[in-house]
């Protein structure tokens, strides 16, 4: 049965499995970006995906919420196969929050509206309720002073925290983070990682594509190293980052950790 048949996915509890990928492939012409990805993400698990640029990390995230449709393979969200019809995808995406490298805040709305527009338009929540919730979420990410500000008046770190609040407003079952600190000035990285760390501690299921090795080491339950469109190595952060088995992993970590 596909999720199309039901309006809401079941609440947590019935299965430990959040996302399952089977043989996911994606090519752009001759460029094979994903060459068969199989993995499972458990409920509450924090998975960090690392790897050189062009390894397919971001494409993997974008295939999970179908911003890019995969060419082959199946994906299950909470045990249900995700169908490929447009309407079914709109329903699935409600449950998958995404935060982008470039923030992608809506520049014509203030912080509260950025956060409340999703619940208001997609879930038909009344304005008062969705705005109230947006204020709560913005307070939670440390932006209670910036509720009415427009994105162009916010720093990169503040914008990214609004973006996290915007995704959380939909009450997602899993959150995807696509190199969310890569476009930030160094001194702004910590405020964003702190918010993500808190989310992880609260038990949010998270898939984090990142170059922040310290974050991966401290927060992740599992680290996936990707290269050339495949999962080369995965396991506990201490193992993958501290004692990599594969040659490619060693070379990559040698280059990254040397700086």
């Amino acid at each position, binding site marked *: 049965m596909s999720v199309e048949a039901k309006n809401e996915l079941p609440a947590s509890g019935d299965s430990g499995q959040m996302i399952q990928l089977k043989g996911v492939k994606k090519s752009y012409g001759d460029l094979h970006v994903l060459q068969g990805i199989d993995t499972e993400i458990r409920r509450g698990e924090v998975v960090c995906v690392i790897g050189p640029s062009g390894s397919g990390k971001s494409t993997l995230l974008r295939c999970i*919420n179908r*911003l890019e449709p995969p060419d082959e393979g199946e994906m299950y969200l909470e045990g249900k196969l995700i169908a490929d019809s447009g309407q079914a995808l*709109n329903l699935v995406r409600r449950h998958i929050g*995404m935060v*982008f490298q470039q923030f992608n805040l*809506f520049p014509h709305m203030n912080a509260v509206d950025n956060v409340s527009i999703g619940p208001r338009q*997609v879930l038909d929540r009344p304005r008062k309720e969705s705005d109230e919730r947006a204020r709560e979420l913005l307070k939670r990410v440390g932006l209670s002073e910036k509720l009415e500000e427009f994105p162009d008046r916010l720093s990169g770190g503040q914008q990214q925290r609004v973006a996290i609040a915007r995704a959380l407003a939909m009450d997602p079952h899993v959150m995807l983070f696509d190199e969310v600190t890569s476009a930030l000035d160094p001194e702004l990285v910590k405020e964003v990682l702190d918010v993500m760390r808190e989310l992880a501690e609260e038990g949010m299921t998270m898939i984090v594509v990142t170059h922040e090795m310290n974050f991966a080491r401290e927060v992740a339950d599992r680290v996936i190293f990707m290269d050339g469109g495949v999962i080369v190595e995965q396991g506990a952060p201490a193992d993958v980052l501290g004692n990599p088995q594969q040659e490619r992993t060693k070379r990559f970590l040698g280059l990254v950790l040397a700086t």
Partner: protein
Amino acid sequence: METIIQQYFDFSIMGDNLDAVLHGFVYTLELSLIAGVLSLIWGLILSVLRQLPGRGAAPIRALAIGYIDVFRGIPMLLIILLISGGLGAFAAEDVLPRWLAIPQWFGLPDNFWYGVFAITITYGAYMAEVYRSGIEAVPRGQMEASRSLGMSHGQAMRYVIVPQAVRKVIPPLLNDFIALMKDTSLVSVIGLLEVVQVGRDVYSSTFNSSALTMGAVLFLLVTIPMARFVDRLIAGQQSKMQRAIP
């Protein structure tokens, strides 16, 4: 010199025909505003149809593109003649009901409405292209962020993409509106007594151009302030952009 001034600036002829010219200019303004608003709406609809996603919408996209190509490529004067001739004949043959084929809505004559149809059909196509440039100028990430929240393509267009696109295209749309206003003079060809037609009538009875000069001045009284206003809008947008890029 004397002759030139008398030909174009004969104040006694201007004074005699002031009422008629002003009356004609009211038609010009009504035609501009009604057809302008309809063109804005029709252009937006066309551009949104042109951007519909998915394979199923391919025929609609092709129709929208075909429409825009055709009506940007035909002189508006021809469209005016085709519409007034066609609708007149259709009414005579009972192909179309008279209220539609010979419209007299709101007490305005049928050639006024033929002009409105022709301008909307033509300028809708121009404005669709302006909107499209605005929609395409909105970064891809805006659509992706909207879709990732679970919005449909339509919701994303309505709440996120189009509001940003419209802000970007207000100056070029106003430029199109200035062009539209000047092109309303073409409706004189089917006998609407707008400002140019009034001037021509005065000319053919007096062989003096002063009533036409008055019409030109009336146009400038509207178009020059609008052009200045557009310049200010553009300057404002540019300084805002420069602030965004430190």
